[in-house]
């Protein structure tokens, strides 16, 4: 089959066995990427598996568009049972690893078992070897990548930092020095297998069914991406994202207690000044015109230059209210090097800072409990302690929910997280009913894997566009209004489908909507030679979504778990554009009912027999 490499690796670290399995049997129903990964996890994971045991399964899977000419096709999906949520843990990463893996001849890699000592997997085309990695033990991501690239700079690396080795729930898997499969503690799963890294280099390439048509379609897709309203501004988002979040009234500060932190503008200015004095070069992922990344280097600060992500940089400031951007930059480099999920890590530190400000954490009950908001040094020290599981860091390393359960009733009340305990993503949730629903029903917690770019998010800054999208998707402009509960279940289900398709085809969810499903479908057809329609891809997305649900149900999830932290129901916003907004329990429950029904699940959230039959999942 064109577009695919038609086989994936299955590596058992218990006995160093390396085999390949044909991809063919999974394609029609599950497309690739996230879809096939979920199917494999469902098949291979023993029920109620201990997430850090050798039996847990870790899957890296590319899609049929990964590594092709289709723009943004650098993606790879990583799925396992999450140690943080004990549910499906999925994360998707860009960069250059996915394409390289396909050029080596593999659609994906399944890792099971546990090596007796630290190892890495070295792949060059047909040569796949499990190699000893003791020399990389405790090493940061940057050193690990450099060490594994010593002989060939074009090698692509997936690796964990010390945080993954220490089984920190907030650890992710780094792809070279920048992109991360960050969320859900997948780094800890990799660490539990004594697998430090996967190095891949490929020179086999990919067959394409209709090369000339692919050139035309890719050209059109690039044009659409370049016509996105935000396209021109993208390279400046490293400091402008603050004001963009403001213009949509999505910002919050600290541990979700305030949306109008007085000193924020000073923080934004510091960020702008920092970025403007830095050595700065726009960068991007494989095949993508968007430039979400930029190489940033400031001499004498942080000891390294690195390509930085706009969202996570912003996240560190808004959560911790640290205004000194030199410290923020150091914190960013540390997280990237230690192997931490920056969203989760900044959330848990903001949580600890909140508890400190309320006297729940004090210097006396934790020797390192001195965590005032805004203190950059305290932030940096907390990051190091989380990655090493030292002192208070050992408690915070498990994430907000588990930390809150260990610190008493008052602490529990302050905790904010999505389903399963995954920290929320960088935006206030209470006014955005679609995002709130998404956090509760999604496969693995936070909405960043379900409803990226939901039209309600940009309603305030680009009302016309938001309304047009809402009208096209669910038939009414009103669906775009953030505070409306009506229409949100349908909107969320449709965005989820699109997001699943992006993750399964192997492309990025950011340009997915602006390019439009029609063109992605065409790209799928010309790459693979298989006829497809937006309709049957959408059915595949529904199938994948329902299989994710079946996995979670098998692991003990029930309707009561489909919720979001209590504070968001009982603590109205006290300031800002959405003053007074809070989630209404009754309407929230109604949204969940409606969502289940749209998915063909019963009132308990279980897929019905008819649904299973319709989707071929009996």
């Amino acid at each position, binding site marked *: 089959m064109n577009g695919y490499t038609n086989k994936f690796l299955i590596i058992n670290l218990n006995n160093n066995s390396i085999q390949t399995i044909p991809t063919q049997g999974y394609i029609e129903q599950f497309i690739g990427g996230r879809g096939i990964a979920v199917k494999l996890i469902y098949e291979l994971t023993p029920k109620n598996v201990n997430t850090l045991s050798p039996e847990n399964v870790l899957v890296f899977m590319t899609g049929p568009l990964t590594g092709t*000419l289709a723009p943004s096709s650098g993606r790879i999906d990583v799925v396992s049972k999450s140690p943080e949520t004990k549910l499906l843990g999925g994360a998707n990463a860009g960069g250059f690893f996915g394409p390289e893996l396909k050029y080596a001849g593999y659609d994906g890699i399944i890792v099971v078992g546990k090596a007796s000592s630290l190892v890495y997997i070295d792949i060059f085309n047909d040569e796949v070897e499990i190699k000893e990695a003791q020399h990389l033990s405790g090493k940061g991501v940057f050193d690990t990548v450099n060490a594994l690239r010593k002989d060939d700079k074009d090698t692509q690396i997936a690796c964990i930092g010390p945080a993954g080795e220490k089984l920190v729930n907030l650890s992710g898997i780094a792809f*070279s*020095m920048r992109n991360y499969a960050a969320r859900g503690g997948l780094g800890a799963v990799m660490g539990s297998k004594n697998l430090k890294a996967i190095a891949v280099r490929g*020179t086999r*390439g990919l*067959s394409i069914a209709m090369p000339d048509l692919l050139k035309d379609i890719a050209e059109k897709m*690039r044009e659409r991406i370049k016509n996105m309203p935000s396209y021109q501004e993208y390279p400046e988002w490293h400091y402008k994202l603050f004001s963009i979040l403001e213009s949509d009234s999505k910002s919050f500060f600290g541990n979700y207690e305030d949306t109008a932190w007085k000193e924020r503008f000073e923080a934004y200015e510091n960020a702008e000044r920092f970025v403007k004095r830095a050595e700065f*070069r726009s960068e991007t992922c494989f095949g993508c*015109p968007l430039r979400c990344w930029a*190489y940033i280097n400031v001499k004498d600060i942080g000891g390294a230059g690195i390509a930085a992500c706009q969202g996570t940089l912003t996240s560190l400031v808004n959560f911790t209210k640290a205004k000194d951007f030199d410290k923020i930059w150091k914190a960013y480099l540390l997280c990237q090097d230690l192997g931490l999920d920056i969203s989760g890590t900044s959330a848990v530190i903001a949580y600890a800072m909140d508890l400190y400000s309320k006297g729940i954490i004090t210097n006396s009950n934790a020797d390192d409990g001195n965590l005032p908001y805004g203190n950059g040094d305290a932030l940096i020290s907390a990051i190091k302690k989380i990655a090493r599981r030292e002192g208070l860091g050992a408690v915070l390393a498990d994430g907000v929910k588990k930390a809150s359960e260990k610190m008493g009733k008052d602490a529990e009340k302050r905790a904010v997280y999505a389903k399963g305990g995954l920290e929320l993503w960088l935006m206030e949730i209470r006014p955005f009913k679609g995002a709130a629903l998404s956090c509760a029903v999604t496969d693995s917690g936070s909405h960043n894997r379900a409803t990226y770019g939901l039209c309600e998010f940009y309603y305030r800054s680009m009302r016309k566009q938001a309304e047009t999208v809402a009208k096209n998707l669910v038939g009414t402009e009103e669906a775009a209004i953030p505070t409306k509960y009506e229409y949100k279940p349908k909107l969320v289900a449709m965005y989820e489908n699109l997001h699943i398709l992006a993750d399964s085809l192997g492309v990025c969810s950011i340009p997915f909507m602006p390019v439009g499903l029609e063109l992605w479908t065409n790209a799928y057809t010309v790459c693979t030679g298989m006829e497809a329609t937006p309709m049957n891809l959408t059915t595949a997305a529904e199938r994948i979504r329902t299989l994710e649900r079946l996995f979670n149900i098998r692991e003990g999830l029930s309707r009561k778990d489909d919720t979001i932290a209590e504070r968001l129901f009982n603590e109205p916003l006290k300031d800002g554009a959405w003053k007074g907004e809070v989630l209404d329990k009754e309407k929230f429950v109604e949204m969940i009912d409606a969502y289940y029904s749209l998915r063909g699940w019963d009132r308990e959230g279980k897929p019905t027999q008819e649904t299973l039959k319709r989707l071929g999942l009996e």
Partner: protein
Amino acid sequence: MIVIDYDKCIGCRTCETICSLSHEGRINPAEARINIVKYEEMGTNMPMLCQKCEDPVCVTTCPMRAIIIDDSLGTQIDYSRCIGCKMCIMACPIGGASLHPTNKKIIMCDLCQGDPQCVKSCPEQALEYIDISKLSLKKRREGVKKLARFLEEVKI
């Protein structure tokens, strides 16, 4: 020739994929005539390809005279003569020629017979196909712009 503006390149590698797709009908950076050389830790993305030298060492090195110089397209490989000895790869100071990984033919940029696909698809216009005689004049104009900006700053 294809002129590279290093400051504009964002490292997306679209030039590599379109090059291999155009020449080979498949996607493989190892079969591309252009590659972006990356030094991730330094933020470097440098597109590298045959520079169509005026006095090409590949031509003088080739024992079979299989590299000819076309008036408008510069060095081109005559595959009827090429024996795949790889002397051109060894001689080229910048890696302009390479070996196809499967069919073992020598490959180098042929400027797509005057319609270079990489230039067309580069989203940042980091690659430009222009008459080399116009390059220095263009660069002098850009230089004046930079100078003007500098003088402006000095005034303030």
